[in-house]
């Protein structure tokens, strides 16, 4: 480990020199960033983000080989079980050189020492300015930046215009009451529909309601975090959201274990008129069912008394695993992916918002109505989960997910929230 750190420091210095001279003499004997001849770099890319990922990957590989001479091995990883896989890979030293890491996991992995602080490399490459603030913040721990912002997304309501119009409810809801009216009208219109699936496995569909009622997941005072998920506001939001399923018949029992992909599958079969989903999903629908894609319409998730509730600003950072043998080459890949053509292309293909401000403005200006709705949700309501190493554990323990599914399964909201809060406090105090 000590030797590894030494090479890293040399690597950072090497990159700075390379920016000027484009040749590296003393960078840990690797011969410099553009000389990756005969080397192979492994890159873990999360699955499902880009519907046309195959073509993108092929071109990325070619571009990377052209730029550095090294071979790029891209391995696509499913989101489900990804956290465990990252933890295990870091523990086993079997991780990739570079990986796409979800924002909420970065502080945990950084704290464990599994990924590198990239601030010096980012600074040296002149990329420090013009990064999307929310993403930088999510990747920050103790003053270090442990990932290079790549892309961000936010969840809003996506709907099937035809089904909504058939029931006569195709307006942006201005409050919870409006949303409830929409749902009940849809259910009355066709009792076989699942008007608004309450997916038990998707915590980020539930959080906008916690936040929309003025609640928080946890609050920070100085260095210490305290769970707030059992506060009256948060419980009010949770109650309202879960009641959609429990009292208003908006969902189906099967949805208690549904992930967002299951809601999407039902939406694709046109039994679901609307659901909460991410800004990246319209592109997937376009690829799966172009006919349905024509009928899409988006709404911001309403708060209790306003049209835009805070919604989780999620996304991914490009991170470098500490175990990599090729830190400079790895950073080359990070640059290639997060800046320039590949960054814009990724944003266009995925409906995600890029991680640099310049590209973000461009995408929003040129986007369609749906993109604008998601952009509104992000700029007016983009919100982060507690930025602490403990968060990864809370997510790994599925604390909030368990809370939601137990409520959907009949536990009283306050009890479930108290249990979750107790567990979260346990993680915070470790």
């Amino acid at each position, binding site marked *: 480990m000590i030797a590894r750190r030494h090479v890293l420091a040399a690597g950072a210095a090497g990159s700075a020199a390379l920016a000027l001279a484009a040749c590296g003499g003393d960078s840990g004997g690797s011969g410099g960033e553009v000389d990756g001849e005969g080397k192979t770099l492994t890159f873990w890319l999360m699955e499902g983000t880009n519907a046309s990922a195959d073509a993108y990957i092929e071109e990325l590989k070619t571009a990377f080989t052209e730029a550095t001479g090294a071979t790029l091995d891209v391995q696509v990883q499913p989101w489900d079980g990804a956290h465990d896989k990252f933890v295990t890979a870091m523990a086993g030293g079997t991780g990739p050189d570079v990986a796409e890491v979800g924002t909420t996991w970065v502080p945990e992995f950084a704290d464990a020492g599994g990924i590198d602080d990239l601030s010096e490399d980012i600074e040296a490459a002149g990329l420090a300015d013009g990064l999307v603030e929310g993403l930088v913040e999510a990747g920050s721990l103790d003053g270090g930046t442990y990932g290079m912002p790549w892309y961000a997304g936010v969840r809003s309501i996506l709907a099937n215009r035809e089904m909504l119009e058939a029931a006569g409810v195709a307006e942006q809801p201005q409050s919870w009451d409006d949303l409830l009216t929409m749902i009940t009208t849809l259910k009355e219109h066709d009792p076989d529909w*699942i008007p608004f699936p309450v997916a038990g496995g998707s915590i980020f569909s539930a959080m906008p309601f916690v936040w929309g009622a003025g609640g928080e997941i946890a609050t920070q005072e100085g260095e210490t975090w305290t769970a707030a998920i059992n506060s009256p506001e948060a419980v009010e939001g949770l109650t309202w959201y879960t009641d959609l399923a429990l009292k208003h018949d908006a969902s189906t029992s099967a949805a208690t274990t549904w992930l967002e992909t299951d809601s999407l599958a039902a939406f694709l079969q046109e039994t679901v008129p609307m659901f909460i989903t991410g800004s990246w999903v319209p592109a997937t629908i376009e690829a799966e069912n172009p006919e349905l894609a024509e009928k899409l319409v988006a709404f911001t998730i309403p708060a209790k008394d306003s049209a835009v509730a805070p919604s989780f600003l999620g996304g991914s950072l490009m991170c470098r695993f500490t175990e990599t043998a090729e830190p400079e080459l790895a950073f080359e890949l990070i640059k290639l992916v997060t800046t320039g053509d590949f960054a814009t292309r990724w944003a266009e293909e995925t409906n995600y918002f890029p991680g640099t401000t310049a590209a973000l403005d461009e995408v929003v200006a040129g986007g369609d109505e749906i993109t604008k709705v998601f952009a509104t949700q992000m700029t007016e309501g983009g919100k982060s989960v507690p930025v602490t190493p403990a968060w990864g554990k809370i997510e790994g323990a599925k604390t909030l997910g368990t809370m939601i599914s*137990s409520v959907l399964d009949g536990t009283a909201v306050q009890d479930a929230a108290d249990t979750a809060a107790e567990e979260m406090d346990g993680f915070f105090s470790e």
Partner: protein
Amino acid sequence: MSTAAPDLRDRQDGAAPLERRAVPPGRRLRRGLAPWLLLAPALIVLGVLLLWPMVRVLNLSLQDYELKNLLRGDSNYVGLDNYVQVLTDPFLWQIVLPNTVGFAIVCVVLTMAVGTVVALFLNTLGTAWRSICTTAIMVAWAVPALTGTYIFVWLFDPQSGLVISALDGLGLMEAGSVNWFTNRWSFYAIATLNVVYHGFPFIAVTMLAGLTTVPDELYEAAALDGAGAWTRFWQVTVPTLRPIIAVCVILSTIWDFKVFVQIFLMPGGDGSTREVMNLGVWSYTQSFAQGEYGMGSTIAVLLTALLMVISVVYIRTLMKEEEL
């Protein structure tokens, strides 16, 4: 197989005298060393892959060993803190332990009952039908636990599985109206079905092989005494087959306590539905999802201890029955 077993039974009578016959001194020495040479590879493998890791897991269970420590390569001994934490956790007593022990007991009892009934039934059949049925239950045995689990998950799929569709068709229940995987009892009912289905063939085949060795005269004698089928089973079959029954019970207990895949692969079984966790899944998720290797080891040690207690009891019983 009915002919093979009886002539195995007279090993001791034939072997012992031969052993004592004059053997040249050189050979005797080599024969003293020979078993250990033959055993050496096996002992090394078992030692390195099973015994040494057990020592290591004990050592880890005394540490607050997290991903951090692993990556830094340091250790962090905390004495018995992990044990105190686990043993005072209501989650262990209310959820995990009942799930593990209760589930295992139910599974062993059901597996033994179903297996024995099937064996008794097969024993009444003619050769042709018996081998057809044996082949069929071999299929049930052979289906890997992993795929078997997915089959049962699919059968009980809340939206379009066979069971809900059938109930829907009968007008008893609406498709999508209930999710059996989120409720602790129905979750374990499905898991029990899966484990018993997978486990009974071993019992049936083994018991059947044993049944064919029971001399008919014993039954005839009992029948002459006026014993009915039920009495004959308890007074003739069970005592004669005691060693076989003991082995069956030991093995199924061991298997059913260690059940992991069948739980882990069910929806919510990987730790997301907390109330269906058993010791194995808890240990695994603590370690590999939370990066808390110390705590995971502690739970693993407890599980192992539980199994050891049970198996020592059984081995004692077995050793009384027959010299190993």
